[in-house]
């Protein structure tokens, strides 16, 4: 069977059309923070429909965790904030209409750094905003009178007493730049109203969250909305929650015609990026390497709107201590508004940032103690049955195995110069729910579930699993695009949960005489103490890198990159391997050159020649990985695990040459600057 993606016959959201539809473009703010004083569309030709803030005043604010965003901004909070929109018979006419919409602004003071924005007295972005939205699955802790929209804490043991016992303490501040998902296909959707029913075809990982948030916006019952999630040409977290859909739907409502909205590439950087973060880590250990205390402070820059930033900050926080036995742990994670474009879900979700910081700090600690970094980690590593700092007991723990295998892959024991290693412990969406219905159609079986396809191979993995469980050939399994009017509720296709959760629901459905299966994972954390169940299922992995640094030019070349991840039972071997390779390559981008560059809040490298994602030539000549499999074990999500440990493995390898790097990406300029302070 030839893959339609390979033959070019696959149809994506961008290809979807309805008869008589109009094409939309967004008119965006030129200023990082400004009140919109006047919108004048009188110069726009009659054939175009213009949506202005007046047209959306009856619509409710939205946001998947904090309802802080309006469909169009009357107060623009970032460069690129949608202020108006146009729809025209052709995409070209829509593009030409954009500059004809005249907007007067009154500029307001702006702030572009999360640490600065969190201080008292910083310009405020949102005076009031209510928690709510389809993904507010934990209690929000906004700090009134500041830009902090969520604060998460872990309080475990007594860190002060812990540090008092320590023979060695390191404390360093780490930074990681914002990144762009750079999915091949841009955001694309088509909205259509049938009376009071809204139909939306869109590339989204979160059809039910989208439905519920649109119901809030338009003040209609969720059942009056139908979301069809079309196959996506990549997403990596970008196509989550409401992005362009509310604007398309509001335009369609005004135009009384279907409206299609496809983002031009440059507007992707104004729509969603990865949280830039500043993470300070303090670690204390006894002379023998036993960790006694860990303290982490994270500032996640969520940009102008919270989006799922509170969740990102919380995961950044709860994963910060990592897979180590530490009796005293303190974490403070802040999700902070700034006047940058919104930051949200991104493959690695919060773990990219805190894993970089912790794993770098551990190597600095090892250096100070005169211990081998692998040895230091092994001495403290969590084992089966250990209790994490959240109070939950860890099961099916394979960190030591991952670490040892990764170290062996780069011949750690034969010399450590130029080599680095790092571990990741990544949580999965908890609580969450997955359900699936199996229908018979002649000889075929039809899978009705909300798991979406973004190129990660979810459809293939679940079809193979269904064929196995039903004892039929995979050719007899059909898996239509998820349609919220036809499939049972599912939380989201995020956090590498789908193969794990949906395959368990599928097993239930196969057993059920009606062909229906549902699975829930329960848990959640107290945001003030960090106690509870962070994740019912942890993704475990290690990365090892071998690098060369040209000390005159600051150029880092990774000569060997390896990851070992715990896979449990593998459902689709090829898919698992490709996900791992993709994660590793993405990790190299973050490690070496990816950075969303801003000047006064404006992204200045919003194109794919200035914003560099890895090319195949950047893949190291030795590029290896292994999946630790276990027959009969749980299925483990693999969509992200091999990503977060890559940057710290590379950073630790660079540091092994005496170049202490704290900031990502490791561009020549960063490396040369770090060499200047070399001891």
């Amino acid at each position, binding site marked *: 069977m030839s893959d339609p993606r390979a033959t070019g016959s696959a149809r994506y959201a961008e290809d979807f059309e309805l008869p008589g539809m109009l094409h939309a473009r967004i008119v965006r703010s030129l200023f990082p923070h400004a009140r919109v004083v006047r919108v004048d569309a009188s110069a726009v030709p009659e054939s175009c429909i213009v949506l202005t803030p007046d047209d959306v005043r009856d619509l409710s604010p939205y946001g998947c965790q904090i309802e802080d965003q309006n469909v169009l901004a009357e107060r623009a909070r970032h460069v690129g904030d949608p202020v108006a929109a146009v729809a025209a018979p052709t995409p070209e006419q829509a593009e030409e209409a954009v500059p004809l919409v005249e907007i007067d602004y009154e500029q307001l003071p702006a702030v572009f750094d999360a640490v600065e924005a969190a201080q008292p007295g910083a310009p405020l972005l949102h005076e009031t905003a209510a928690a709510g939205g389809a993904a507010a699955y934990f209690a929000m802790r906004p700090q009134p009178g500041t830009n902090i929209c969520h604060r998460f804490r872990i309080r475990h043991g007594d860190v002060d007493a812990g540090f008092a016992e320590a023979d060695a303490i390191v404390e360093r501040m780490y930074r990681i730049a914002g990144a762009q998902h750079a999915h091949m296909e841009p955001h694309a959707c088509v909205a259509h109203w049938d009376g009071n029913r809204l139909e939306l075809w869109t590339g989204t990982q979160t059809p039910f969250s989208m439905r519920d948030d649109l119901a809030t916006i338009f003040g209609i019952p969720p059942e009056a909305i139908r979301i069809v999630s079309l196959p996506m040409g990549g997403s990596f977290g970008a196509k989550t929650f409401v992005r362009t859909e509310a604007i398309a739907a509001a335009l369609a409502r005004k135009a009384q015609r279907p409206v299609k909205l496809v983002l031009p590439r440059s507007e992707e950087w104004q729509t969603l990026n990865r949280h830039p973060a500043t993470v300070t880590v303090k670690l204390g250990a006894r002379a023998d390497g036993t960790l006694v205390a860990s303290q982490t402070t994270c500032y996640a820059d969520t940009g102008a709107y919270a989006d799922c930033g509170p969740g990102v900050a919380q995961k950044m926080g709860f994963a910060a201590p990592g897979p180590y036995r530490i009796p005293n742990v303190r974490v403070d994670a802040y999700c902070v508004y700034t006047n940058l474009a919104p930051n949200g879900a991104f493959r690695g979700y919060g773990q990219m940032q805190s894993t970089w910081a912790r794993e770098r700090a551990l190597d600095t600690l090892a250096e100070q103690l005169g211990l081998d970094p692998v040895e230091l980690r092994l001495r403290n590593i969590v084992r089966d049955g250990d209790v994490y700092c959240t109070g939950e007991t860890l099961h099916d723990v394979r960190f030591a195995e991952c670490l040892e295998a990764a170290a062996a892959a780069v011949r750690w024991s034969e010399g450590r110069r130029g080599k680095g290693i790092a571990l990741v412990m990544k949580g999965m969406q908890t609580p969450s729910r997955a359900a699936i219905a199996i229908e018979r159609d002649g000889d075929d079986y039809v899978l009705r579930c909300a798991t979406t396809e973004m190129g990660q191979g979810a459809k293939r993995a679940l079809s193979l699993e269904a064929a196995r469980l039903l004892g039929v050939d995979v050719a007899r399994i059909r898996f239509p695009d998820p349609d919220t009017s036809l499939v049972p509720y599912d939380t989201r296709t995020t956090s590498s949960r789908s193969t794990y959760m949906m395959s368990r629901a599928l097993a239930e459905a196969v057993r059920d005489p009606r062909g229906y299966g549902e699975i829930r994972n329960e848990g959640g954390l107290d945001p003030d103490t960090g106690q509870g169940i962070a994740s019912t299922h942890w993704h475990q992995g290690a990365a090892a890198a071998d690098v060369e640094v040209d000390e005159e030019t600051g150029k880092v070349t990774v000569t060997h990159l390896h990851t070992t991840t715990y896979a449990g039972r593998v459902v689709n071997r090829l898919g698992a391997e490709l996900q791992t390779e993709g994660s590793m390559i993405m990790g190299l981008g973050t490690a070496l050159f990816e950075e969303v560059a801003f000047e006064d809040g404006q992204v*200045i490298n919003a194109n794919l020649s200035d914003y560099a994602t*890895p*090319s195949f030539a950047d893949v190291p000549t030795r590029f290896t990985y292994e999946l630790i499999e276990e027959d009969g074990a749980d299925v483990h999500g693999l969509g992200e695990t091999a990503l977060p440990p890559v940057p710290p493995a590379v950073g630790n390898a660079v540091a092994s040459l005496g170049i202490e790097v704290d900031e990502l990406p490791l561009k020549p300029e960063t490396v040369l600057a770090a060499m200047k302070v070399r001891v």
Partner: protein
Amino acid sequence: MELRQPSSAEEAVGLLGNGHVALAGGTEIVPLLRDGLLRADALIDIRRAVPRGIHGTTIGAGTTLAELEVDPGIPVVLREACRLAASPQLRAMGSIGGNLLQATRCWYWRLDFPCYLHGGDRCHAKDGRHDEHAIFGNDVCASAHPSDVAAALLALGTMLRTTARELPLAELYRLPTTDDPQTTTLADDELILELEVPIPEASVYLKAMDRQRWSFPIVGVAAARTAGEVRLGLAGVAPVPWTLTSVDDLDRATPLPGTAYKLPIARALVARALRAVATG
């Protein structure tokens, strides 16, 4: 917009000017038009008007970078500069003439900030982020010329033949001033026809860049030894391709706070390039 396809250089010259702009491979000009940075009433496709191909030491301005990078008769420095430029798709379309005339990659200019080069009265880069910018010739505009190919051709001592004159490559360029933002001396109705590229005894191109391929140079250093004398051409260091008359020129660099890191890189690459062409 109109597209004209003249079949000779004379015909093309007659059509050029007054808002009629030459189009070769289009890899540079099409994005500029699309982004509204360049306005044209008509595009004059010059591919039948300008020579293409390699004849001994003469290179037609319409020759693509892809053709140059694989030709064993082309000096190493130029082959390498072509091979390390852009992406295979771009090199298959992009001509050497068009490469010499590419506009700056300065992101302020590309975002249409009203800076000197757009006829405005300040350089936004100097006041803002400018880590990709210049360390030489940055008095007015601080942009960094991105052409690897031009650096190689400078090192080789290339002569150009246009529809109006013959000139050394260095004379194709001028540093922009506050009252004239032009970076080339080419007239609106002048076409580059051919390049005369001497064969050196030894040559090399070294490029520092963010990724392994498909990146503009942070610093590119071309060196060629001809008749016992070594010439150095640099990319990514000044608003125009830059000639170093001696290593001491590096002491006269005027780096900005954000571009200071380029200087040690330039020094290292120059030293390596000189070593490479000293022998062999």
